[in-house]
């Protein structure tokens, strides 16, 4: 498993695939590009041609077009998830405010240090508890949808799943591109792609890396509207152990803000929180992660350090 930084400006995908010594074709998953999914000529060319796009986006569109009740159930799941996210955000905002305020007081020495540190730990634990509960509820909603829609027995879904399995048959590697993380995750989950690719070498970047992680964390410190609180979206495919991938971290996160960095790292620790900007790379050997020099991770001290250190 290899995680890379964004590929548009400084592509490093080909060299990562070369390092995997791939035998067979390269499968690609570009469902995060939505209706542009098929526009993968550049990606195919970069990988030397002959790639096999699993075409998860149009497959799902086709399934929904042919089965109105499945589409209705999927929309109902979205509505429920949107409601749950809105309530989670409301609670999260005040929990994060409390944690930030206590970390700020520790930083400037405003109050009894021992007490502040104990309370800050509790405040962060409250945030973690909210994250955990929200993730559980989103998992429940995904499962409820799948049971209600009888995905496991759905003929059209299973037909596509069979085709995907066949496509993957002689592939030696899977590349998962970025894009819209929810759509990518849902398409992969609908067709059970996680199980089909878990034994194959995988290279993923941006939303691709996020969708494959155990928990999908959405983040932006300075959006034009809203509070800029990182939030748990829900479960991911779960093929990447112990990592919260942070693509475009330099652009999306205030990495020079010690308090924000510290809070992020403590909130999602002990998972590794790597800043996956251009040129970065993390390799999983089945037991541990190795980072290319210059690949940094967020630290509980509020700083960024080499991810392997």
């Amino acid at each position, binding site marked *: 498993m290899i995680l890379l930084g964004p590929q548009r*400006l400084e592509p490093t995908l080909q060299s990562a695939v070369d390092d995997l010594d791939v035998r067979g074709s390269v499968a690609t998953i570009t469902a995060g590009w939505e209706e*542009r999914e098929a526009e993968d000529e550049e990606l195919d060319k970069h990988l030397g041609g002959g790639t096999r796009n699993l075409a998860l986006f149009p497959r799902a569109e086709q399934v929904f077009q042919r089965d109105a009740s499945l589409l209705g159930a999927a929309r109902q799941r979205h509505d429920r998830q949107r409601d749950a996210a809105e309530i989670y955000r409301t609670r999260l905002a005040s929990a994060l405010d409390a944690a930030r305020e206590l970390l700020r007081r520790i930083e400037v020495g405003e109050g009894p240090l021992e007490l502040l540190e104990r309370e800050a730990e509790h405040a962060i634990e409250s945030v973690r508890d909210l994250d955990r509960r929200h993730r559980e509820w989103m998992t429940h909603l995904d499962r409820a949808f799948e049971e209600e829609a009888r995905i496991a027995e759905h003929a059209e879904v299973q037909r596509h799943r069979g085709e995907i399995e066949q496509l993957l048959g002689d592939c030696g590697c899977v590349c998962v591109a970025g*894009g819209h993380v929810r759509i990518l995750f849902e398409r992969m989950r609908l067709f059970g792609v996680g199980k089909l690719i878990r034994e194959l070498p995988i290279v993923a970047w941006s*939303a691709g890396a996020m969708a494959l992680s155990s928990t999908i964390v959405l983040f932006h410190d300075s959006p*034009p509207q809203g509070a800029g609180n990182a939030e748990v979206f829900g479960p991911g495919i779960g093929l990447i152990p112990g990592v919260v991938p942070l693509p475009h971290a330099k652009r999306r996160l205030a990495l020079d803000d010690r308090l924000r960095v510290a809070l992020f790292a403590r909130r999602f620790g002990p998972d590794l929180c790597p800043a996956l900007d251009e040129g970065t790379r993390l390799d999983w050997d089945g037991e541990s992660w190795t980072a290319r020099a210059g690949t940094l991770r967020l630290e509980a001290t509020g700083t960024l350090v080499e991810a392997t250190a």
Partner: protein
Amino acid sequence: MSGVAQEWTERAQREPHAIEVLLAEREFPIVEGSRVTFVYRGPADSVHLRHWIYGLGSSLPYERVEGTDLWTLTMDLPAGSRVEYKIEVVHGGDRRLVQDPFNPHLARDPYGANSVVQGEGYVEPAWAQPDPEARTGEVLERRFRSEVFGDVRSLSIYLPARFRRTRRYPLLFVHDGTDYLRFTGLQAVLDNLIHRLELPPLIAVLVQSNDRLTEYSDDPRNADYLVEELLPLMEDEYPTYGTPAGRCLMGASFGAVASLAAAWRHPGVFGNLFLQSGSFAFTDIGEHDRGPLFDPVVEFVNQFRDAPGKPAERVYMSCGTYESLIYYNRSMQPLLSSTGMDVRYSESRDGHNWENWRDRLREGLTWVFPGPLWMVYE
């Protein structure tokens, strides 16, 4: 005498080339905390700062540094301010308006360019500058025969990068669209905000009027032109959402009046309004004092205040606190909110000018059309 003038007078008396040294070592105007000192050098009988800050006299006199041809003026400049100005030099019966020769910062508008002073903490937005990483959209020019106006009109149509006929887009109508392109860098702003995922890819129709003071002051023809001619044209030819929520009317000054008036005359057509420094003059009693050009505007705003209805669902409005229109805009905000519309109102320490409007584009556009920022990681 101001502190700077005093200091310079004393140094000029002590050192033979003090003025040259001082001019070489400083950037002008000199911004120190919440004070600014303007400097002019040259032969003059008097020198004045001409500005458009409502509440201050529009002509503020400089003081001569004794025994020199140097003139200074020190005044308040609250943090975050942005002020456009010119220098008026009176000499030998001649009166000239010039840009500040010591200040390289200029702001352009349809009438030329003004010098600009930026208060402490003001930062020119990076998202307003062309970003080499951002994919660029394109602006198509076309001519269009309007039956409503009985003439041929020019239109500019912005299509986002990676435009696809297979997907649907929000539709933004921009009054004074060509001016927005020229003086706010609207194309680069749209490219950047779309690239940053703060704004969804959208189509913008940039309209320009040859007689804006008439057509934009609640002229029913403008509303009909937008709703009965341009909207069908755009929605027939381009893949748009075709719903009120996917449409926005936008404009500044009289363009904001035109936007509100069109939405008011055709409620339920446009779901969003983006109103910058609206010329929303009204009267509570008696006559207004803004001249005859404002007669139809005042008539419209008075009617609107009596029966606002609910012209749209979401509104972003902004105004500079140094504008004479600030009172009207502050008054409109609670009225608009009372109609049940979701209103976001923002003020800035700036005047009635294009760079003020440029600086609010990110907040306003992302309020009416929020982008997929939280979900897309490419």
